[in-house]
């Protein structure tokens, strides 16, 4: 029974990673850049949510919607100011800029909200459903997390595969030049991708801090890196791949934490990433792209 408990906790953690990883994988697919600052958008979202709920006593869903709005705007601003001027630059330059943005967000948060951890009030009431005479307990937040993740995953798949904007996004990720010739506004499409990714990051932030309630300016960075790890694990650029990779990574992390050592769990997670990249360099569901000269 404890095994099943750990498994469900792992799926729940993996679902949070999946929501984060979507932002990473979409941006990577379309702009071919690793948005290092994505993890810090999660943190900003969580802070906005925290202040809305705990300080201004707003209902939880208003807080989450506020966080989504602010993070969406933040994502668009960051893309316009920092990444858009570097569209033609080498990937090393873009990556270093993204690290700079990540630091900027973290340290702005540090100055605005200090490094004292905040105790995040969960967005739904605490409590758990008990099964098998209380041997198996699934908390409300776990169910909400998994349900949200599945819902987002389905909605996003439909959006990308069925809608016109989704088609534009796929076209841009395939070939920006050709997409532009077909009359697609590439810049607007990239901005839209950043907006969706950042909005999802805000939801992930609220869910993450509901499950693990201490909130500091560095809360987002490690989950962000791990979600990216998971996205790479599943094959970057592929949405089902990100979903699968994240669920597996979440389960591996919880198992490593419970059965090996809580201090070494991060090392185990990263070791798994390295092994996967060695065996399948494109990830579990990624496709190998041939380099053209």
């Amino acid at each position: 029974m404890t095994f099943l408990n750990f498994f469900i906790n792992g799926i729940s953690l993996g679902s949070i990673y999946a929501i984060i990883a979507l932002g990473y994988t979409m941006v990577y697919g379309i702009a071919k850049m690793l948005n290092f600052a994505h993890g810090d958008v999660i943190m900003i979202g969580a802070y906005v949510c925290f202040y809305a709920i705990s300080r201004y006593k707003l209902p939880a869903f208003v807080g989450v919607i506020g966080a989504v709005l602010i993070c969406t705007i933040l994502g668009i601003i960051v893309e316009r100011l920092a990444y858009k001027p570097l569209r033609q630059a080498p990937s090393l330059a873009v990556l270093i800029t993204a690290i700079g943005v990540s630091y900027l967000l973290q340290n702005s948060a540090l100055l605005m909200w200090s490094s004292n951890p905040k105790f995040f009030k969960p967005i739904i009431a605490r409590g758990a459903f008990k099964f098998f005479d209380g041997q198996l307990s699934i908390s409300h937040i776990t169910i909400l997390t998994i349900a949200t993740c599945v819902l987002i995953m389905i909605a996003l798949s439909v959006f990308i595969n069925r809608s016109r904007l989704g088609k534009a996004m796929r076209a841009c990720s395939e070939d920006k030049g050709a997409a532009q010739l077909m009359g697609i506004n590439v810049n607007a499409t990239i901005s839209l991708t950043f907006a969706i990714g950042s909005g999802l990051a805000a939801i992930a932030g609220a869910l993450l801090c509901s499950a693990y309630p201490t909130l500091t300016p560095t809360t987002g960075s490690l989950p962000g890196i791990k979600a990216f790890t998971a996205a790479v694990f599943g094959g970057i650029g592929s949405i089902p791949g990100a979903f699968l990779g994240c669920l597996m990574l979440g389960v591996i992390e919880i198992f490593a934490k419970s059965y090996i050592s809580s201090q070494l769990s991060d090392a185990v997670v990263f070791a798994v990433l390295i092994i996967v990249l060695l065996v399948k360099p494109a990830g579990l569901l990624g496709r190998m792209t041939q380099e053209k000269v």
Partner: protein
Amino acid sequence: MAIKKFINLNLKQRLSLKRTEAKKIFMTYLFVIVSFAILQGMSITGTLSSTMEGMLIPICAYSVMAVSLNLVVGISGELSLGHAGFMSVGAFTGTATAILLQNLIPLAPLRLAIAMMTGAFFAGVAGFLIGIPVLRLKGDYLAIVTLAFGEIIKSIFNNFYLGVDDYGLHASMLTDTTNLASGGRMIIQGPIGISRIAKISTFTAGFILLMIALIIVFNLVNSRFGRVFMAIRDDRIAAESIGLNITRFKMIAFVTSAAIAGAAGCLFAMNYSTIFANKFDFNTSILILVFVVLGGQGNMLGSIIAAAALTILPEKLREFADYRMLLYALILIMTMLISNNDGIKYFFQKINPFRKKQEAE
């Protein structure tokens, strides 16, 4: 095959290539020697403030770190985000060696030299082991995996226990099960790290290490190997197509860089009475990357100046300490925007009153 000609230059071509390069190298050596002479003179005559005096060794260590990372990022063009990991390996193994040799070698400079060599050796070995999987990847994947390795090294040292007693060395992971005999000494104590370190690092040792690092890096860069690194950086596919073993050359750069970083880590650690694994985290890796980026990728003198300036500046601007990291972040972003966006570059060229006259093409 221009690229092949570039790598296998004949002597005359090499000399002509070197003449332009030689001036830059000479200036770098001169700068380091003159600064050392001035600072050492000030230190002896006592005109140097005590805070400055305390920063001399960290400046040396960070300069060496920046030079070594510049070999990977600037010359061979791979972004490594786990450089502090090698510093950590060097710091822990080197300091442990120094503690073990405390009674055997009473002469402190010799002990420091051996400790640094041990640190460099172990960091080099770590670099080799990490390089095997990492260097098969490229670009962003390589960056994220070096980051992962940096975190793994940190986790390992955070859970590693090492002690010594009359029966020899005892090591354990996760929990302290070394059970030392009486009179034994714990060397590495997990998250607490190493404490009661005899501070044997000196500014002179730092200067010598920096000179050695520069000699190694410059000679490597201006050899056939260095030209291969640059060929791979500029066009990997072209370099591969003329039969260069990419992984092997990347490995040479990576291991050299790791070994130098290990020696620097050892120098850094022996300047403090305690060190712990969390000191060498992702932030430290980024800090060193900032030195390299700000000083100019591939420019060793720039790295040294950036390392020195960004170590001294926060001390001088203590009242703005909170804004320090914010400033670093802005510096990173601005440097990248200015150097990589034509519009912004042109704007800065226009307002720069010292700009060189544009040659008509």
